[in-house]
């Protein structure tokens, strides 16, 4: 499973990840349109929130049109052509990593492309390969579901 791994203790809060993410997918520097979020934690720096991909899969199960699926690499993807914009997935996400912007009709999320990891000056982000089953989910069953 390809996943964006986060290291909160290294994050310095520069926001470069959110800029590159929104630039990559929305062609504008708008942190509200970033799939990765950097939440300030009082006295403790920052908490980076990003999709756990196939290790979770709650949005996949909730989607009535099966617009959300898991790729062979274990990445959770939204097919915008099938999505009917109900945002049930946004509510189903337990960590707030399925994102919504008021001016966008479709939800969006991290697809583990790695653009932010390349840009991070302190290596607080990295694309890694992990076994989904190790993280508590049977990847095969989720892929079958999708």
């Amino acid at each position, binding site marked *: 499973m390809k996943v964006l791994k986060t290291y909160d203790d290294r994050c310095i809060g520069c926001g470069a990840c959110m800029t590159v993410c929104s630039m990559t997918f929305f062609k504008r520097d708008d942190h509200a349109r970033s799939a990765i979020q950097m939440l300030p934690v009082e006295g403790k720096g920052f908490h980076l929130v990003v999709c756990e991909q196939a290790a979770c899969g709650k949005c996949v199960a909730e989607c009535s049109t099966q617009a959300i699926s898991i790729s062979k690499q274990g990445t959770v993807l939204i097919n915008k052509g099938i999505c009917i914009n*109900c945002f049930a997935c946004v*509510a189903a996400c337990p960590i707030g990593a399925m994102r919504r912007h008021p001016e966008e*009709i479709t939800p969006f999320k991290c697809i583990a492309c790695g653009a932010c990891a390349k840009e991070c000056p302190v290596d607080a982000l990295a694309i890694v390969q992990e076994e989904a089953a190790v993280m508590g989910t049977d990847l095969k069953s989720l892929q079958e579901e999708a």
Partner: protein
Amino acid sequence: MSAVDSQALKSQHKLLAEYNYQLRPVERGYNNRTLFIDLGSKEIAEKPVCFEMKRKFVGGKGFDLRLLWDAVQETTRWDDPENEIVISMGPICGNTNYPGSGKSIVATLSPETKIPVDCNVGGYFGPYLKLSGFDALEISGKAQQDVIVFIDGDKGKIQIIEAPGEAVDSHVLAEELLPQFAALEKDKQHYSFVTAGRGGDHTRIGCLNFSFYDKRRKVMRFKQAGRGGTGTVFRDKRIKALVVKFSRLTGASNNPVDLKKVQDLGLKMHHEILSQDDQQCRMRQVGTAHLVEIMNDYDLLPVHNFKFGMHPQAEKLSSHEFKKWFTQGMPDGCWFGCTLACCKAADNFELLSGPYRGQRVVVDGPEYETVAGVGSNSGIFDARSVIEINFYCDTYGLDTISFGTITAFLMECYEVGILNKERTGGLELTWGNTPAVLEMLHQMASGEGFGAEVASKGVRWMKDAFATQYSADRQFLEDIGMEGKGLEQSQYMSKESLAQQGGYYMTNKGPQHDEAWLIFMDMVNNAIPTFQDKADALHYFPMFRTWFSLQGLCKLPWNDIEPADNATTEAPSKVPEHVANYIELYTAITGFPLDKEELIRQSERVYNFQRIFNLRMGGGSRGEDRAPYRAVGPVTMEEYESRRERYDKQLKEKMGVDPDGLSLEEKLRLHRVYREEQYNKLQDAVYARRGWTTDAIPTVEHLRDLGMDLPELVEVVKKHLP
């Protein structure tokens, strides 16, 4: 169904009429046009919707009744060609954000009641019909052969197609039709069918199945427009199926004024449901079946034709039993964006009886009403049997509520000797005899035997028939035959809740719980103790609940899920936060202002229109709101004895009579006098609160106050006013 077989059926089709219309986007929840189809003359036409129609009738049931009124005469009967099947959905319907926003509302003159009946039903048909370009569909006339009506919302084309080959029963018909229309798996979701079943050909309790394609199960599933014989009218018109196609659905298709607001409200509800449902009603796990054990605990679950409210074996019908059959973790919404996801299904269910014996099928539900009706009320305490009966009712297009109440009535008649094996053609209709019930059900579909010749006609007809043919005690039959206005009662015990007696029998269409469910407020919490309190509740709740059917909304996300702090609000039974949601949602879609008073008035206009429609068709007055005595109090000694302590206490405390030394007959008589008097007093209070005369006739002043003093309405009420 193989593609080859499906194409062979399609090759028998003959195009009878075709009509092209201009596709255009929905504007603020409306198309401002409706579709009219006459199957007799094969006319297909568009009708404009004026601002005044939206202002006075809103949509959904309001549009249905307005169009139906204009189509029929006061002499029209259900099987006259001018009677219509009308399907409308309302302005909120079709958004994909707010849970429960996909309801269609069907209306027709009922074969059971002779007055209009309306049903609020899920599935994709209504929303797709709207997004295809029409705020309502009227079907008039009768075809000569079985037909399919196809509305292609992608191309702007409507066809009437003669279709002689396909089956009538819904689950087979859907299997045959789907490959004819949708060649690819990905296209199937874009179709919805309305179908009936062979039960509609031979009974007065035919229902309609509204489909939605379940992508995970890869099967068309159905929600039922159950009450009052809509499927019977459908089949009388020789309609095999209505088919709609719409493939361009997005969150913006309903074109609201403020899409962001619609999304905000929907997302708030999604969060509320996902965080609260497991602690509240568990709708996502078991649907409305969660009610079975609650009703049994409170002596409200109908047992043995509404004699009793609980049973030692009720545990066998509890939601925990049905959960074993329902596949868990599925997004079982009957329209997109409904996270309440209550339409559960039993998968891979093997049928053990009837023409489809041995088939493995998907069974929708059962829901509470079905479990109580064909289960406890008929003495069947076995979940598997209930699921099998549920499946056959659905595919035959039979209303499970009426079927349950009919069966319970017949069983009591059998147990007391009014019926016997000779009179039932061999059916041993003793309590709990599942094989006999299934046999009767199959007879209703095949058009043969006691099921088709007697049971199919409904409780009102049977009461008269048994009194006439078998010299049975007419009063006893009137007391235990649980129908009002000709419609069989739905499945709650109302004996100990006066307000619920009104909630059932002072309704417009007959005793169905969708107008008012006041038992807990009244009986358990004693929150509406006076006649005035009860009358206020029997004004507010029927009006509030009518609003769902004006808008194309489902009632369940109103109070089968509640905000975590709802109990601390001023009026928990109204769920104030959700009422506020609805007001904001309506304005965000239509742009029209609304507040909670105007919300009630929107409903009140249509509610009074429907009451006057009843009057016009020969019903509607005080006498028509009569309740069978079993809905009001204990009919038999057996019932009295079963709750002796309660009834004796009531004699002392409510009637001021010492029960000691009184005979059982005398106690029963005193209860009856008291309880019927209470019901009469309630009628007076409710009618006054609703702006009606003591004979239940809306006054001209009240109509004027509502802006509903339309000449055609005033003309009808004036005939009845002193």
